[in-house]
């Protein structure tokens, strides 16, 4: 809330700090505030509260109008690929999405596509047991594409609706790992499956690197959306503003905790209100 009642330099500074502090980033913040300055001139705003409302309204407008559905393909099984850098919440998110799908009456097969990290398959298998989904895994160190291919074949055999494919965390700076991911995406469609979602899982505590991640991952595997995790913490996840504006990639889901039910659809209004709370 703006402490000053009349708009002055301190008012603008407070707004700048709120945006920067929320990881909206320098460029997006400057752009938003420059646009707001024009509106103040044009509309003759004088109160700090008017200014905050105008900024919130502007951000909400810019964040709305995106496709936030998780799409199923015309023919089953659909394949939803979960990608992202290390430790962001991909495996946990798959557990939550599986529960969501099962509650909606659909059958889910999980693919343990992280064949690299210690106990990755065991972690996913635990989630599968918890929600009542099948989990197809391979051997540690095996080919991730083969695991996902097998999972899709299994899903087709049992008439499952969706394959949730887990992948190993990887930094976009690793050329060979991004190439491996491209192959994973290609192979996921070789069999009976159709890739209808490629979701970047992004940690809300991430700073400006989040935009770089989105740029690199979409270049590699053509992202359909973002899952913003750990928004139950104090971080605001403001980097998604630039991700949506610059790359047109919508945030579809938000992770709000570590249990199976802690997943909600992304709501632009709630997000903007929380940013300034």
């Amino acid at each position, binding site marked *: 809330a703006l402490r000053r009642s009349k708009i002055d330099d301190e008012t603008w500074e407070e707004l700048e*700090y709120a945006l*920067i*502090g*929320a*990881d909206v*980033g*320098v460029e997006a913040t400057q752009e938003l505030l420059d646009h707001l300055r024009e509106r103040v001139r044009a509309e003759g705003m004088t109160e700090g509260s008017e200014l905050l409302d105008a900024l919130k309204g502007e951000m909400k407008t810019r964040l709305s109008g995106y496709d936030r559905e998780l799409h199923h393909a015309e023919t089953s099984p659909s394949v939803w690929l979960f990608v992202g*850098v*290390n*430790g*962001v*919440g991909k495996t946990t998110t798959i557990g939550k999405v599986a529960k969501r799908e099962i509650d909606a009456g659909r059958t889910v097969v999980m693919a343990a596509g992280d064949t*690299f*990290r*210690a*106990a990755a398959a*065991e*972690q996913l*298998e*635990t*989630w599968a047991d918890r929600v009542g989904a099948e989990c197809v895994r391979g051997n540690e160190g095996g080919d991730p594409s083969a695991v996902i291919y097998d999972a899709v074949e299994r899903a087709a055999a049992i008439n499952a609706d969706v394959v949730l494919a887990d992948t190993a965390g990887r*930094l*976009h*700076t*690793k050329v060979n790992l991004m190439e491996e991911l491209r192959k994973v995406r290609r192979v996921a469609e070789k069999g009976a499956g159709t890739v209808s979602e490629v979701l970047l899982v992004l*940690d809300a*505590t*991430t*700073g*400006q*690197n*989040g935009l*770089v991640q989105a740029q690199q991952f979409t270049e590699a595997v053509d992202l359909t959306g973002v899952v913003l995790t*750990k928004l*139950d*913490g*104090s*971080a*605001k996840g403001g*980097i998604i503003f630039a991700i949506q504006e610059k790359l047109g990639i919508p945030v579809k889901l938000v992770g709000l905790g*570590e249990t199976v039910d802690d997943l909600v659809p992304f709501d632009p209004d709630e997000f903007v209100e929380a940013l300034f709370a």
Partner: protein
Amino acid sequence: ALSDRLEGIFARIRGRGRLSEDDVDEVLREIRLALLEADVNFRVVKNFIARVREDLVGSELSKALNPFQQVVQAVHRELINTLGGETLRITYASRPPTVVLMAGLQGSGKTTNSAKLARWFKSQGRNPLLVGADLQRPAAVEQLRTLGNQIEVPVFSEPTDPVSVARAGLAEARRLGRDVVIVDTAGRLAIDQEMMEQVRQISEAVQPHYTFLVIDAMTGQDAVNTAEAFHATLELDGVILTKLDGDARGGAALSVKEVVGKPIAFASTGEKLKDFDLFHPDRLAGRILG
């Protein structure tokens, strides 16, 4: 990069022969933007810029042959001073074992770096024991056991509760004659009162000689909140900075160092257990400046 931004300004003022107050302000504005883009917390940036201004005001820039160089050097110097200071030298407990506690947010790299640290202690001639006190994340203990096997370090855990596991792990280390104990804990939010109380109790139970906050190098503005809360609850001895093999500028490290006032002890630079070493402030300083 900061150098490009500053070059533009200096090219314009070079002809004038002396630097005015306004010129210095303009330069400092560019440095501020570069640091914010590097994820340094905006409050930390404010204090940092004030310090750099003091350096520059006293340094007779207008008389310098190459004022541009002087500014970049002043910023670089101030960054290294803030990030560095004394390297953490591990001193071992006179009555073993030396207890190390690993804490931090979810997914920051605690479990992997517990194993990396164990491997590092082995290279120093020590005999560590890993204690898996994360009983909440699915397969967390398996993860630690798998990593322990890779480096032939024993792993202790039991399905009781985190505080009891930590305590029992310490007893086990004494029983086995291990001289270092590394306690891995569950990731937790700094604003989760219950979980922060739990880690405080773990600390109370094992009285660590070293408590490390494990921080992801790509963390943004919120790093300050995290560092303050963990430091208030646990009294940190150092920070372990992870995922430095990415291209995040790493400004969170500056924020954390500023707020906690304890050394960044180690740097994790990859997914393999060998990608781990003592922290070098000069490398990070260059990276933050961009």
